[in-house]
């Protein structure tokens, strides 16, 4: 789908605050206001942490995180949980559900969105076809190669009906032949906003803007 049809424009994401763990303090001051943003920077500066904050998998110690103007995390009482944020994620590791067939892994977010099993499977089959995995639809994750698992995980993220798609180096373990086609799929997804953490300059080239971390690391 083209950028013109994606309405009502990009999701505004603003993170100003501090994340603190036992061995790690990270200060973030980032505003994402484009449809396609690449996040780059050396290892350990908090790129994945930024995605986890936006997804609701991690909390701010202090500060504020807004998505489309709504405060979803203020470091204390306000915290909108991950499942209520309308944010999809393709993780660096595939995180497929081992007890489900590949097609049911991809159908999982569609079922959560209220689709009946048959309808969800139909849409999931389309997404699997788009990543070239139709032939393994009824296999279990353990029967797939590492690259196939990663492609299935991308198909699941693409199938998730959400306003934001977060990508944590999803093409790192994908072979060169598939990479270009998958990159096109991720760039042209229906999600209003894509935030893509990457080390690959070719991934970053397609972004409307590039954010370099650290923004203000302590």
């Amino acid at each position, binding site marked *: 789908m083209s950028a013109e049809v994606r309405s009502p424009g990009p999701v505004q994401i603003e993170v100003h605050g501090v994340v603190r763990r036992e061995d790690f303090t990270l200060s973030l001051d980032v505003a994402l206001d484009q449809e396609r943003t690449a996040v780059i920077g050396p290892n350990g500066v908090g790129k994945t942490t930024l995605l986890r904050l936006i997804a609701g998998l991690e909390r701010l110690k202090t500060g504020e995180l807004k998505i489309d103007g709504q405060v979803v995390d203020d470091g204390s009482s306000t915290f909108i*949980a991950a*499942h209520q944020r309308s944010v*999809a*994620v393709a993780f660096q*590791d595939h995180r497929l*559900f081992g*007890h*489900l067939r590949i097609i049911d892994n991809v159908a*999982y977010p569609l079922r959560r969105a209220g689709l009946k099993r048959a309808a969800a499977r139909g849409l999931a089959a389309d997404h699997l076809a788009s990543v070239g995995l139709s032939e393994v639809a009824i296999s279990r994750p353990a029967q797939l190669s590492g690259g196939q698992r990663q492609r299935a995980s991308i198909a699941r993220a693409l199938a998730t009906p959400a306003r934001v798609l977060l990508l944590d180096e999803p093409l790192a373990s994908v072979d060169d032949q598939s990479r270009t086609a998958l990159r096109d799929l991720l760039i042209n997804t229906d999600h209003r906003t894509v935030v893509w953490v990457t080390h690959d300059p070719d991934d970053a080239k397609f972004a409307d803007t590039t954010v370099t971390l650290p923004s203000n690391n302590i």
Partner: protein
Amino acid sequence: MIGFRRAPATLLVPATLAVALLVVPLVGLLQRAPWSSLGSRLVDDAVLEAVRVSLIVSFSAAGLCLALGLPLAWVLARVDLPFPRLVRAVVLLPMVLPPVVAGTALLFALGRRGLVGQWLDNWFGVTLPFTTAGTVLAATFVALPFFVTTVESALVAQGRDLEEAAAVNAAGPMTAFATVTVPSIRGAIGAGLALGWARALGEFGATITFAGSLGGRTRTLPLQTFLALESDPESAVAISVLLLAVSLGVLIALRGRWLTR
């Protein structure tokens, strides 16, 4: 790994003695078993009644382990509890507590004049000691930690990755628990249930202290065995062989988890 012949004798000899200590009593039991009349002894009315009570009690205890222990294992594995070591110690305590102490404790807590038991009696007319329900509670008390530790270990080993993946796929906490967490550790849940059930089936001390030995109500197979030792030792041996076979069956069913390394 080194070959059997190259293992030092100073370790091999005590190791062999340890195996002998475990095996000799079982051989003694099997050698005394009345093989020709085993079947008829096991279909004796009193034994069949004990089998019925044991099946009701052990499966009810396993069911309670699942209903209460699965949430408890999840809380232990996933929630930042205050005083986590103390909580874990309390959960594990029945594994090391003498069962007769467990029975005494249950009596003072749930007996008709006990801490909770007096209210159960006054408000609901419920009396637990010397009832089948009391026997189930005693069995659950001793079996629960076996189930909880097995499931908790699996949850800790699995980590939160899959639950996070479920959350960003719009699954709320309970949906994630039911559709991802539970199915992905179903092997451990099965193993925990088998262990808990076997422990409940073999329970003696807490049961006789809290629930007594009433035929058809609280007299389980171990209690029937103890009673028969006085009057009909061959029947006691026959029931023991049955319980030994069931225990071995549980171990064999769990072979992938416990008998390999």
